[in-house]
């Protein structure tokens, strides 16, 4: 069920930041903001919580460590304890490098997966771009047209922050598809 949005297109990141803050102050529900690069402070301004992805990394890194330790203990001591160079069959100091690497490897890979899952990113996904220059040099605030929305207030606010364009779109709108382009 597509949601109806009211969008403002901006040219400068500081304008967007200001506009977002004022939108929130005005009580609008911001559907999303689209920027060509990570504008510092915008996420906080939108009231987004800190990303939970850190916990994915931590948990999976710990999992990698545990996996590494159990693998090496199993391999060198339990499954076939061999006399290699007269050293103990459980040489913990020798495990350290591999433990570290496995922690980082599994932690890192899971972070990547976590990012993809959290952001719903996957190869072949249709991004449904709202504006052709959002990845280039334009910024867009999309406000939900719900009960908190007020069109007059919104357009005034956008204009205050030098909005270049103001558009009525829905959340399924794809500027490239509507132009007949393939994606």
């Amino acid at each position: 069920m597509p949601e109806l949005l009211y969008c403002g297109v901006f040219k400068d990141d500081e304008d967007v930041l200001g506009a977002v803050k004022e939108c929130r102050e005005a009580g609008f529900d911001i559907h999303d903001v689209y920027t060509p690069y990570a504008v510092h402070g915008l996420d906080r301004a939108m009231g987004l919580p800190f990303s939970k992805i850190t916990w994915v990394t931590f948990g999976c890194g710990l999992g990698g460590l545990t996996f590494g330790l159990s693998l090496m203990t199993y391999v060198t001591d339990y499954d076939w304890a061999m006399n290699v160079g007269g050293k103990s069959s459980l040489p913990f100091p020798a495990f350290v490098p591999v433990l570290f690497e496995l922690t980082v490897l599994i932690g890192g890979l899971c972070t990547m997966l976590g990012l993809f899952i959290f952001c719903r990113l996957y190869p072949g996904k249709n991004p449904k771009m709202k504006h052709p220059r959002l990845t280039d040099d334009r910024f867009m605030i999309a406000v939900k047209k719900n009960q908190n929305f007020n069109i007059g207030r919104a357009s005034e606010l956008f204009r205050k922050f030098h909005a270049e364009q103001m558009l009525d779109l829905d959340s399924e709108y794809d500027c490239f598809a509507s132009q007949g382009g393939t994606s």
Partner: protein
Amino acid sequence: MSGNACSPLREPLVLGGKKLGDITQDVCGSIEGKPSTLWWFGFLLALTVAGIGAATMGYQIYTGIGTWGLNKTVGWAFDITNFVFWVGIGHAGTLISAILCLFRQKWRTSVNRSAEAMTIFAVICAAIFPFIHMGRPWFGAFWALPYPNFRGPLWVNFRSPLLWDVFAISTYFTISLVFWFIGLIPDNATVRDRAKHWLRRAFYGTVSLGWDGSVKKWNHYETAYLIFAGLSTPLVVSVHTIVSMDFATSVIPGWHTTIFPPYFVIGAIFSGFAMVQTLLLVARKTMRLESYITVNHLEVMAKIILLTGSLVGLAYGTEFFIAWYSGSQYEQFAFINRATGPFSWAYWIMVSCNVLSPQVLWFRALRRNPVVLFIMSIFVNIGMWFERFVIIVTSLHRDFLPSSWSYYTPTWVEAVTFIGTFGIFFTCFFLFIRLLPAIAFGEVKGVMKWGQPKGHSHDAGHSHAHGEVKHA
């Protein structure tokens, strides 16, 4: 660059009063048009060299390691030298993107993409050597991995530094690749959205994973990026530490040295920065990126090179001191032999290139002179290759029993293989600069206001949204 509102402390990171769209155009334009003749020339040359190198490697794998100049005493020479050399080169990329990211060094944005790419290609080149240096790579390629099997099962030896290498290099490669790929996603999305041809749309659509610039995604993305920077930083230190343990954990005088981990890491930073500088100086000139890769950037890197070069020199001295202090005649001989023995020529090349040549960077004028920097960086590259050669070959060729002492002379196969890896490296690099945005313009855009005159900002209250500007 009128001086009216210039930052008093810093020069701008991006010169020429570029606008956001200009950056996109500058970077994407270079991969959207038809490749230039120069590109074709460079690419085909690199491909040819890579092909010759690959054929030589095939010949060597088929015929045997005997095609190299190794012998019963010197079991490693060019192979592992090249391996450590390439791994060292690779480290600079990660350092520039990860460590500098953590330290909020904004100047990294113009160079980090190509530095990361360099890391990946250098690690590919590096990984070739552990593979081809094996007598039986067709088995070694999978026997070195711990997988359940029908042999009892006979697993791998977790005590072996070579196995640590397997884990370290594969982890390093994987994490660097992921880091690089994630960094590319927004930029690829830009290219996708500019693309006209369906094939380009399909390709960049695939590699941008449906990125749409949503701040909700940027929120996760920025965190994940920071995590990767955080993971890569100890990783890069660990990888060269582990590489150094190949030598440090052995019993051979000249290898059996506790100083190796820091010594190798510093050496890697040193050689990596030199290689980045070499490449950037070329790229800057040929691709007209002077506005993005400024003399200021070069100077910062030169300072790091000067610091690390001097640290490497300190390490050389420390080795000699410890050898003398140990009282072990084998250890003492190993170092005296290094400086005066049959391979002393290599030793003195190493010292003059690594310790002496960077000393010119004490002078600001020379530090800011691209020609001087280029020559010096080439010297450092040569010197750091010889450092690994000296450590490996001179330690091996005369170890405990004088009856086994020998000499080592490389063959054409080794030389061509080494040159071939440069071909592989540059083939990848040429493909990279044609196919993917060579400058992380997403990040450049984020810092372009830095040190710029406050141009079109209309609201003073928001003008310094970047906290770093103030703290800088």
